[in-house]
């Protein structure tokens, strides 16, 4: 049976970047429920990745097969426009630029925006929006960067999350039906981009795997087998 309650531990166990096992099973529901709050992730992205985004459904935005909603960007502010309580920052991270709009409604917001100057490196948390076929970021938070190791860290995180979605999920989704034997599979198909833009298939497979096993012990054994098989594959990572 599908879990209908919000499982806080499961939702946040992926560190915020990736949906955990429990939230992945929830994703096999129809796409109208993909806006369910318990499956949203915060993705670190480069502007180049933003520009390469594809649209999955009516208002669904997907990248590497997963819905994109909230994102993190790190870049330099190259332009600031402000009109009344709307501040628009052009943030350039070296791979491209995107406009980030912050609405100032409280005193804390105005303190935040007053600290941002042109030429500063900033970290932006926001939600992707498409306005007149152009991507913009509806900004929740924009903060100056003081430790520049954050810049290196952000881009490495972008690479890691990209790798997670393309290779790790690809490995798991190309597994044949699980059996109780370990190391039973040898020849494996290429996994790169195997599930690009087809999230439903992957999540469906995940649900089948977990539904097969009745007892906790069998489930743990199955998961251990999956991990072992994944680690034995030289093609992965």
């Amino acid at each position, binding site marked *: 049976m599908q879990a209908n309650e919000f499982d806080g531990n499961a939702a946040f166990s992926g560190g915020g970047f990736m949906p955990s096992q429990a939230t992945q099973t929830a994703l096999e529901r129809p796409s109208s429920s993909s806006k369910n709050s318990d499956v949203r992730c915060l993705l670190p992205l*480069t502007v*180049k*990745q933003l520009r390469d985004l594809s649209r999955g459904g009516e208002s669904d935005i997907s990248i590497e097969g997963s819905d994109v909603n909230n994102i993190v960007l790190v*870049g*330099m502010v*190259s332009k600031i426009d402000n009109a009344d309580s709307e501040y628009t920052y052009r943030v*350039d991270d*070296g*791979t*491209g*630029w995107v406009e980030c709009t912050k609405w100032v409604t409280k005193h804390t917001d105005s303190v935040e925006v007053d600290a941002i100057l042109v*030429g500063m*490196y900033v970290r932006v948390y926001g939600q992707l929006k498409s306005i007149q076929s152009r991507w913009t970021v509806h900004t929740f938070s924009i903060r100056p960067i003081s*430790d*520049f*190791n954050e810049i*290196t*860290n952000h*881009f*490495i995180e*972008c*690479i890691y999350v*990209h790798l997670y979605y393309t290779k790790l999920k690809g490995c798991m989704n190309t597994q044949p039906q699980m059996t109780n034997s370990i190391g039973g599979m040898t020849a494996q198909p290429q996994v790169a981009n195997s599930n690009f833009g087809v999230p439903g298939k992957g999540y469906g497979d995940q649900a089948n795997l977990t539904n097969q096993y009745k007892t906790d012990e069998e489930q743990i054994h199955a998961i251990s087998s999956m991990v072992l098989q994944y680690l034995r594959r030289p093609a992965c990572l």
Partner: protein
Amino acid sequence: MDISSPAAFVNGGLLRMHVGRKVRTVLQVIRSDIASVMGKSTDGFQVVAKGSPPVPLTSYVEVIGVAENENTIRAELWTNFGDTFDGSNYDQLCRLANGEFKHLFL
């Protein structure tokens, strides 16, 4: 940042691959004068950045500009990166960003 084209992450060894194009790198400052900075790249090469560096200059500085040749950058933008920047991490990022994950950056 007035970038009309993306700037590639480079270290000293990768600079030669982007001659004539916009690049960005972090240098450890060895010597500076009014018109240039002589620095060590994150992979140990000596690189010269021509332009007007900020005053004062911290130990590490990010330079964004056009690569003139394999060890010179005509700098357009300078950013002080402080004294505690991790050059080895940045070096690894440059290798990844020019290698397997180039499509995420350029």
